């Protein structure tokens, strides 16, 4: 068990170092960082001095070590575009993306699981078939079209919800939240639904097929034979066992929610990290690109690690094979 955890953490660190290497190569090989600091009449000697001061003459491996050391302290230098520290810029945008991702994950879970349970219990019913068809279309519709469609229906046609931006935020000092005001909730609904819709269909399909599979097993038949109420069998016995893969998938999808937030944030002009990353890509703002990459990779690795460890706790079969390996 301990060996499994240690090996898993070792792998996670290896992945992070690889991503750090990519981030570092971005800095080192795409564009010249001194270009941003010199003017037309900087002499060659001065340029060389700047290079020396920045440590660009050191061996690459030393530079990489320095890069990792700085990254661990969230020091990514200044943005090429705004001349502000990258850490501050990301810090400002981080809460917006996190709240959006959190809200859409909750939406996906609380809409997807009941729909999946219903479709799994009554696969032949009209409503269940409707869910299936809608989910097939949902998978074929790109995220940005869903966003545009929702804006068209709820903002343009009915005028119910704001079509862009993050309003009604409350500043808590280290974190700005839109959870505390009605205005904030109203501006959050459309982006969160857009971002969560794909995950919702995924969870719905997963719960449905797992439910149908579990309901066929012997212990369910036995529970029914013992005369247990359908409610107890369906929710106490069947649903509980379908939730293990759901936890895993949801955890892993959390990472892709953060990545797909780039698209949703663009459609709704939501001031999060994804929108900032996209602007950085368009203007080749390398410090922001590499910082975002490292941050997102760390989140991914952390989530994967937690899910893996949770899985060991939840499912005893893995504990045994983990010991054997």
């Amino acid at each position, binding site marked *: 068990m301990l060996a499994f955890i240690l090996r898993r953490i070792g792998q996670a660190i290896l*992945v992070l170092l*690889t*991503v750090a290497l990519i981030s570092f190569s*971005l800095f080192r090989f*795409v*564009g010249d960082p001194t270009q941003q600091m010199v003017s037309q009449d900087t002499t060659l000697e001065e340029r060389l001095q700047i290079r020396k001061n920045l440590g660009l003459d050191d061996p690459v491996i030393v530079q990489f070590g320095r890069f990792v050391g700085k990254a661990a302290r969230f020091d990514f230098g200044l943005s090429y575009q705004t001349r502000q520290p990258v850490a501050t810029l990301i810090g400002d945008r981080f809460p917006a993306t996190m709240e959006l991702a959190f809200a859409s994950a909750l939406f996906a879970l609380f809409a997807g699981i009941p729909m999946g349970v219903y479709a799994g219990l009554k696969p032949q019913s009209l409503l269940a078939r409707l869910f299936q068809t809608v989910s097939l*279309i949902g*998978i*074929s*519709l*790109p*995220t*940005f*079209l869903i966003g*545009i469609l929702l*804006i*068209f229906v709820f903002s*343009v046609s009915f005028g119910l919800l704001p*079509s862009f931006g993050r309003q009604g935020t409350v500043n808590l000092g280290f974190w700005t939240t839109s959870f505390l005001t009605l205005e904030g909730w109203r501006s959050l609904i459309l982006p969160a639904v857009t971002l969560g819709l794909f995950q919702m269909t995924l969870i719905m399909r997963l719960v449905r097929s797992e439910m149908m599979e579990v309901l066929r097993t012997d212990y369910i038949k036995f529970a029914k034979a013992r005369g247990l109420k359908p409610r107890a069998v369906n929710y106490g016995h069947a649903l509980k066992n379908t939730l293990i893969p759901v936890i895993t998938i949801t955890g892993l999808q959390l*990472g*892709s929610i953060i*990545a*797909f937030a*780039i*698209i949703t944030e*663009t459609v709704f002009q939501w001031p999060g990290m994804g929108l900032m*990353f*996209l602007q*950085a*890509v*368009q203007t*080749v703002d*390398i410090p922001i*690109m590499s910082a975002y*990459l490292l941050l*997102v*990779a760390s989140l*991914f690795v952390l989530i*994967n690690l937690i899910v893996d460890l949770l899985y060991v706790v939840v499912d005893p079969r893995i504990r045994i094979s983990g010991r054997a390996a």
Partner: protein
Amino acid sequence: MSDLATKPPPRTNGPSTTPPRLKLSFAERVALWRDSDLWLSFKSSPVAIVSAAVTLIIVLMALMADVLAPQDAFDPVALNLLDGFAHPMERGAGSNMLFVMGSDEQGRDIFSALFYGTRLSLLVGVASVIFSMVLGIGLGLLAGYLGGKIEMLIMRVADIQLSFPAILIALLIFGVARGLIPPQQYETTAVFVIIIAIGLSNWAQYARTVRASTLVERNKEYVHAARLMGISGFGIMARHVLPNVMGPVLVIATINLALAIIEEATLSFLGVGLPITQPSLGTLIRSGQKFLLSGEWWILFFPAMMLVILALAINLLGDWLRDALNPKLR
């Protein structure tokens, strides 16, 4: 697998180095094909027939855009500004041309733009799928056949890449390309950059599948026999192992084509794909979005519908192919 045996792999060398093979005339091949399980499964699946027909029509539309499109939509000379914002099925105020799907602010016929946009979307989709397929098959074969450190390295990279969404990787590659290519060449290189970005973000899945199949095939007798005959490792991989691992690869390629088209549309929509001078469906949707709030819905609606229909048809075709080639479901 038996269906694939009906199509012999293309031969590159002369007949002297290869054992004699059955030579089939075109008519015989058609007869064999009509006799295959795949054709039978295709004939009995209405979904497959309809989606194949829709895909075929769209592909033909794209191929013959120059002939079929009523207007040369991306030649500024052909546009008449007075035709701007014509409603669908309305005649333009300037040229008195009928705009079946309306026109945009420059008097560009949306119906014609759709032909050219679909062509670019399909081109980028197909090219990037071929790119990632060749890369993934090559690396997967190498990893599976050689094993050892090379396998470790290739599969680790694939693992890491698979844990990140493709769109993020494509964005990153695009950003790097932006940094390396001088700004005045952005437009001429855009198509290649986006093909490489999407292709590089999708190779890992092929590599994994091909490696797994290669590991199985490597220990079969025909490979041992080929090795005894003194055929080089490269020859065995290309001529003997490869044809036998192509089944699952084709299924992935079909489904990935739909994904690649959507990925390209997404990138172009985000403004990091194809420029407005060479618009794909995604670029058309991006330019239509700003008119949605003012009521000119058709500029966005028709390209969006086209994208959805195209992706759905290819997806359904891929689903059918996966089931038809899956021996467990037979």
